[in-house]
């Protein structure tokens, strides 16, 4: 009997508590690792020499310059100006009611994210010697400083500021426009025309009698010279139609980065209108005036000073100077692709400050949770 009693373990914490402590312990270890990773990243940036854009060599590279848009830009969500990167979120403060085991009600206010989005466009980084393309939409990590970030908190009942109102109005307009196009796309073979610029499929159907909606779509989305009597002109070629849907008029059929290109690509993949609009993020809606609201954005504006770390790779089939034949993408050797509005020394300081902080916090989390786990098992 004494042996059996010795094998019993008394615990003071229930299973759920152990699970939480276990998660905190593991999270603490992860935070320690992440802190050390910030240290290594700071060193990597410090140890990589800066290259002028004119003479960048293929491979790992680091460039300073300013942002020059390569085509597409976005409106800064809650402010003026254009940007090549934006990340925004809208939060509402909501009450959560919980009831204790003894029936006591607790009311707690918490912030909930009701909408968010992220848009990235390729851009050029230009310095005194030249420029080179940055494929920022290919997995870059953006480190945006407070100078290009903003948070606006509104009290209950407070009206949206003009610039926030403008963002939601523009979003609603784009959502309506996209929904409009998508409905037309689904009327085959209009889908063939708009989605694939497939003139043969269009003409094989012998369209003479178009609906009013189809006529309007043709007039709205194709150049005036291509449409006659509300229908596609007979001598218009597939290349011309494809070119009308792309920004640069590249003769090779491709999905461009503009609205039509995105819609066409998503149409082929069977995605929704909301995805076409936000690229996968949630569709923004006006938050309720009856609650406190918080609007946050971080952007990389056009013409802003920028730091880029990645790898310079040749563009397939391109020749000539660096601006014509190279692009900066993720560095395969380190898995890093960093774009920041901070300069190199500012970025290194930013990472160096965070490294010891994360390590200490992670150590406190894991040591603390271990302490309570062991104490729960009766270890004193």
């Amino acid at each position: 009997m004494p042996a059996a009693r010795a094998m019993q373990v008394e615990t003071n914490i229930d299973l759920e508590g152990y699970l939480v402590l276990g998660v905190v312990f593991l999270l603490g270890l992860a935070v320690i690792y992440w802190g050390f990773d910030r240290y290594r990243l700071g060193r990597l940036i410090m140890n990589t020499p800066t290259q002028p854009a004119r003479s960048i060599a293929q491979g790992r590279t680091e460039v300073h310059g300013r942002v020059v848009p390569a085509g597409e830009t976005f409106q800064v969500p809650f402010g003026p100006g254009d940007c090549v990167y934006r990340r925004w979120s809208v939060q509402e403060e909501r009450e959560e009611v919980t009831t204790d085991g003894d029936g006591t009600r607790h009311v707690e206010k918490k912030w909930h994210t009701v909408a968010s989005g992220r848009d990235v466009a390729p851009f050029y980084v230009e310095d005194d010697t030249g420029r080179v393309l940055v494929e920022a939409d290919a997995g870059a990590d953006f480190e945006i400083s407070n100078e290009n970030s903003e948070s606006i908190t509104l009290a209950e009942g407070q009206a949206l500021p003009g610039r926030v109102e403008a963002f939601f109005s523009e979003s609603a307009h784009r959502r309506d426009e996209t929904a409009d196009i998508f409905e037309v796309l689904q009327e085959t073979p209009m889908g063939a025309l708009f989605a694939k610029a497939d003139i043969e499929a269009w003409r094989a159907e012998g369209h003479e009698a178009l609906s009013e909606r189809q006529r309007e779509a043709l007039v709205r989305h194709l150049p005036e010279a291509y449409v006659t009597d509300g229908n596609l002109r007979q001598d218009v070629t597939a290349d011309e139609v494809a070119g009308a849907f792309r920004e640069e008029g590249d003769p090779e059929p491709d999905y461009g980065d503009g609205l039509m290109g995105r819609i066409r690509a998503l149409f082929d993949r069977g995605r929704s209108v909301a995805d076409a609009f936000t690229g996968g993020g949630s569709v923004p809606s006006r938050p309720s005036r009856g609650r406190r609201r918080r609007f946050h954005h971080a952007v990389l504006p056009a013409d802003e000073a920028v730091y880029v770390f990645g790898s310079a790779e040749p563009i397939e089939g391109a020749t000539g100077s660096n601006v014509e034949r190279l692009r900066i993408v993720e560095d395969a050797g380190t898995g890093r692709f960093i774009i920041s509005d901070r300069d190199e020394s500012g970025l290194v300081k930013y990472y160096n400050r965070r490294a010891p902080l994360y390590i200490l916090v992670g150590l406190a989390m894991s040591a603390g949770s271990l302490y309570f786990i062991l104490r729960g098992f009766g270890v004193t």
Partner: protein
Amino acid sequence: MVLVWIVAGFVAVVVLVLLAAWIVSMYNQLVSLQKRVDQTKQNIDVLLKQRQDELTKLIDAAQEYLEHERELLTELTEAREQAERAQTPTEEAQADEAVRGALAGFRARLEAYPDLRSQTNMLQFQERISDIEEQIADRREVYNEAVTLLNTRIKQFPYILIASPLGFTSRELFTATEEDRQDVDVGAAFE
């Protein structure tokens, strides 16, 4: 008490693991810096080869017109060969000086041959060589930055504790020749 010792032991283990990781990271940084210097050197060599090729084309194109300018062509050819033989940054600097001097002499003599001067390919060669020279200068700056980073790091504490025992050594910077550093005598150019 046992509990405190166990938690303290855990903290000590984490700290030791971090220390080991830090030492490994220092070594990896030194290796990476060294490889970076090698890579930047290779990047310059790529452009030097391009310049050599362009020089060869320039000499071949000019030979027909400048048959009696043997001395000039010889100087250009010898400068090109000196650049091919250069191994160290000092030798490269001296070879660069020789190539630039020969090209300057070539451009000056070109004024006396309007037919040759106006040939499209001759202009293209010179423009191309000029572009390459600018890029070489840029990449030499990058090379010097990489060398400075390495040389500084292996002398700094605590890197110095592992750099010397593990055979990491300083590398030579690319420095301009004495002629490059002297003031330009504009008057002599017009004599």
